């Protein structure tokens, strides 16, 4: 059996890629994908921790996250599509109307 530390390391790397992508990219679609990446990184830690500790709660939590993430994807994509229709761009830097 592979040492769970590897999985944790992989998850950390995936999470960092997602987080940096979120901060550095401007395309809303790509940023969205980065968020998904971060979510799945967390899922990976939960699964592997659950397996290592012989506890099913980890896997149960992942199912919840998957369902919520699926719903979130629907809403998020819908927003992106309608923004694109309205503004003909998906660059988040141009969507700064909420500046205080």
């Amino acid at each position, binding site marked *: 059996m592979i040492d769970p530390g590897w999985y944790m390391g992989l998850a950390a790397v995936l999470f960092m890629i997602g*987080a940096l992508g*979120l*901060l*550095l990219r*401007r395309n*809303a679609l790509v*940023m969205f994908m980065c968020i998904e990446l971060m979510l799945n990184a967390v899922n990976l830690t939960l699964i592997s921790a659950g397996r290592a500790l012989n506890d099913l709660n980890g896997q149960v939590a992942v199912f919840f996250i998957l369902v919520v993430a699926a719903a979130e994807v629907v809403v998020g994509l819908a927003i992106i599509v309608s923004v694109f229709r309205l503004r003909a761009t998906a660059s*988040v*830097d141009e*969507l*700064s*109307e*909420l*500046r*205080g």
Partner: protein
Amino acid sequence: MTELIWLAIAVPLAGSVLLHFFGRFLKEPLPGVIASLAVGTSFVIALTAAIPFFEGGAHGETVLLWEWMPAIGANIEILWDPLAAMMTLIVTGVGALIHVFAIGYMHGDERFHRFFAILNLFIASMLILVLAGNYAMLFLGWELVGLCSYLLIGFWFRRHSAAAAAKKAFIVNRIGDLGLMVGLMLVFTAFGTLSYAGIFDRADAELTTGLATAIALLFFVGVVGKSAQIPLYVWLPDAMEGPTPVSALIHAATMVTAGVYLIARSAAIYELAPAAQVTVATVGAFTALWAATIAMGQRDIKRVLAYSTISQLGYMILAVGTTAYVAGLFHLMTHAFFKALLFLGAGSVIHAMNDEQDMYKMGGLFKKMKVTGITMGIATIAIAGIPPLGGFWSKDEILAAVFERGGYFSFLWVIGLVTALITGFYMARQFILVFLGKPRWDEGVQPHESPRVMTVPLVILALLSTIGGLTNTPIRLSLEHFLEPAFESITLAHPPEETWLLVVIAALSVIAGLVGIGAASVNYLRPREDWERWEGGLEPVWSWWGQAYGVDEFYGRTIVAPGKRLAEVTAFDIDIPVIDGAVNGVGRLVRGLGAWIRPLQTGYVRNYGALLLAGTVVILIWLLVGGA
């Protein structure tokens, strides 16, 4: 039948609700017919229920309809006794006639149905007032009639003066109502209940003279407002801005007599407060004289009648202050007849003259309007106190009873006598200026007799004015016997026993009336130049009368102007800088704070993401290193 007396209130109330909501779907004159029928029904119900009192000996009965606030004796209950019956019959009887008259008078008004809706509401309110079985319900009716008065004075609210008059009436009455309200609180403190039954039986044993005087005087403040006595009478002349049937019904025949009713109803309390009674009688006598002199100098046909009403109310108040309750209520009844008739007659004249109210522009109308002329002539003689018409018997009974009290009251009797003379003068002056002499009409005015729907009530009221006085003559005291059960435990003031004295007093008041009429006739039957020169010769007194002694201006300077100044100071010097300043200051503070931290919201999603991440990292470090 007594248990069903609540129907007398319910029917006009239902009529009012019906006309309010559905009146505009009905074609003229249907709303007027419905309203008149409702009041007529009320009258018939009251008449049927009053049969035991006519038969004599029957006592009052309290009908409990609904337990409202039993703890303080304030239930919806009706006290049906001879006093209530008499008031109900006057209100509904005269009210029905005036409703019918109004069908003709309000012809063509765009808010025809609304007028009758409010008129019906007034009848219901007035019946609540007089049929109440406790002070709480009386107060309810008292305020409701005030509201109806306000609505009806301001019925033509597009006219600025009407709206102002309505406001004035309401505010002046509010001053009086405050006194009544405090009086009711005192009553409650003293007795722990507001129910008539619980108060009048125990008043004698439980009320000290001081407390009784305080209550009686506070009640009288309310009376002064509602019944237009010095110093709060100023609203009544202005109330003539309302349609004439309103002046006839509310500001002459019924509502303004509520004060007389209140004192008569509270006789058991007033009996324990002789000082208050003297005050009441004095105010009444002086009001009678004061208003009568003003009436002499008026040019407006309705204003003469308004001041005349104040003067006659003064007589009634004088009577109840002298404890001659029956005489006061008797005058209330005859006055309701002839004053309603005078107002309706004036309405008929105004109607014929294309809304002209200046008597100097009338004259010679008798030939054009015979029915109005004759009926108004009867009313004029009745109010002047010439036998055998209504006003003679009631006014004479008051004056005789006042005379019999002697002492200080002899002085009030003299005032009453002088007032009788002046009454004859101003009424004859009015009649002559309107109906006799040469026409002084504006060009284009074509006077014509009013339609049947207006003249028939005039004729009926003229009949009542003629025979109404016979209900209580020294020979046959029917009204006194009728009212006896209501005043069983009260000591009543009576006219003198000796016949010769009675005749002398009566003769004196008749002579006074005749002298007044004669003086006016001699003077005003002359050509216009002569009597105008005569009026001019009385300057400056004549102008004082014409301008009502400038009381309105005096109140304006001493009360209204300082009140406005106070309002301005509180509004512009306190409210805006201090109160608004504090509120706006809080707003400015929050806005400043917001401006300071607002730059955090850049609007860039990546900024938010970075902050989120940074926050997470900080928390993580805290958890791993030191915390928890």
